[in-house]
């Protein structure tokens, strides 16, 4: 983390530069059916983040060496579009994208009922077309909505949200500036119905008390975001 102590991003009353309180999240919109040729899809905006996720499958898994006799495999690709960042993102291989793809895949494989589709593949394409901060959370959350939109059975949706620390104060859902100069970041992938986790990362510096506060902010935010996800799915269904 950057850890620039001299950039003031929260005042003595706990009001952040963008007007939010410590536990508040940025505005979120969720829409399904945004990629008409896909089996399921989702567009999610979160602050000035925007992710578009398309789900294809279950379909034949090829090459055959990737097939599993007893279950389906997920093929998750997280990618940032070249115009998604302030400085143009060069298309192509990128270690960060590979890691985010992998942890997202691990999270989704924990909830999709893979054993229902032996020898098949479900492809999940996460495209970040505008990045602010917390794109992996947007990607994972939107991917679970897109899977539901595709009618793929899952034990639960996944809500991903991060909390962190700015100027020694624990806050929920860091924006771009807070992320650049923040002192910690704790993204989690939460199953809203059970409170269990399928995704967890952290970097920075948090005391045990701060860590507990960040955890609680994430759990509370997950419930709030879950409502929006369910609403979007119901709305998509009624159309």
């Amino acid at each position, binding site marked *: 983390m950057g850890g620039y102590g001299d950039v003031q991003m929260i005042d003595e009353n706990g009001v952040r530069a963008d007007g939010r309180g410590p536990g508040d999240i940025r505005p979120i919109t969720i829409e399904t059916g945004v990629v008409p*040729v896909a089996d399921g899809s989702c567009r999610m905006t979160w602050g000035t983040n*925007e992710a578009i996720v398309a789900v294809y499958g279950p379909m034949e898994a090829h090459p055959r060496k990737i097939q599993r006799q007893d279950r389906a495999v997920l093929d998750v690709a997280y990618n940032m*579009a070249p115009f998604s960042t302030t400085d143009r993102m060069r298309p192509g291989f990128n270690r960060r994208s590979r890691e985010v793809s992998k942890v997202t895949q691990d999270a989704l494989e924990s909830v999709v009922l893979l054993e229902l589709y032996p020898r098949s593949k479900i492809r999940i394409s996460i495209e970040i077309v505008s990045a602010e901060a917390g794109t992996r959370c947007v990607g994972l959350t939107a991917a679970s909505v897109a899977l539901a939109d595709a009618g793929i059975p899952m034990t639960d949706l996944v809500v991903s949200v991060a909390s962190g620390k700015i100027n020694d104060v624990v806050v929920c859902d860091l924006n771009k500036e807070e992320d650049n100069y923040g002192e910690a970041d704790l993204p989690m992938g939460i199953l809203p119905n059970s409170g269990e986790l399928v995704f967890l990362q952290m970097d920075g510096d948090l005391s045990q008390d701060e860590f507990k506060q960040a955890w609680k902010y994430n759990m509370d935010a997950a419930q709030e975001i879950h409502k929006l996800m369910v609403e979007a799915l119901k709305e998509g269904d009624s159309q």
Partner: protein
Amino acid sequence: MTIPIVPKLLRSHLSDLAERDARIDGRGRWEGRELEVQHSILPRAEGSARVRMGDTIVLAGVKFQIMTPYPDRPNQGGLMCSAEVRPVAGRNWESGPPSPESIELGRVVDRGIRESGCIDVDSLCIIPGEKAWQVILDLFAISDDGNLFDAFALAGITALRNATVPAERFEVGEDYQLSVSKTPMMCSYHRVGGRFVFDATAREELGGDERIHITLGDDNNVHSLQKGLKGIFSAEEFTEIMDNAIERAEELRKIVDEL
């Protein structure tokens, strides 16, 4: 892109339809799909556009970089155009290095925009021989239901026309609107069921043959042509397409002018 198995049934169905002068989605031979064009929709891009043609959806984003001018052209900046069709856009598109199809897409759109002279590369110079703007136009497919070429070209020129040069961020003066003096338009035709049609869908592309792309400038000057895929066409067929392209390009230009 994986090679889809072209069902013989689809080909024969398309021929039957062509005999009755009909199309698979009920459109007329020269009729385009419903069109929706938006601009300035991506917060991180200096210029952007979203085009929807039926179920085909694409984005275009403009970014700027500072480059050192080429030694033989010390007073000029540059324009770069690249197209990406990632697996998000359809089940037949695969990840990995850019496929020949997406490279062709980017290059054909690039030629139409570049050759029209709509961007004055001399105006992109900051300090002769030292600093100049490089304009990068990235085209990105969201949903491929055919004719990505026209969607990319339309999104590309719309994004450029609404782009702001971020001089303040690079500390070389004040931000200003990128000057785009012309509005080149691409029109694409596919041979489906034996005759050419305008704005083919994915199914028409799948069961069709060769395609022809024409980019026309404001004065109907021709700026780029491309024939793609296997097939033979006659001079008469080409004349018919060109006459139609002149009409279609004018309609499209009007839409972009009115945004």
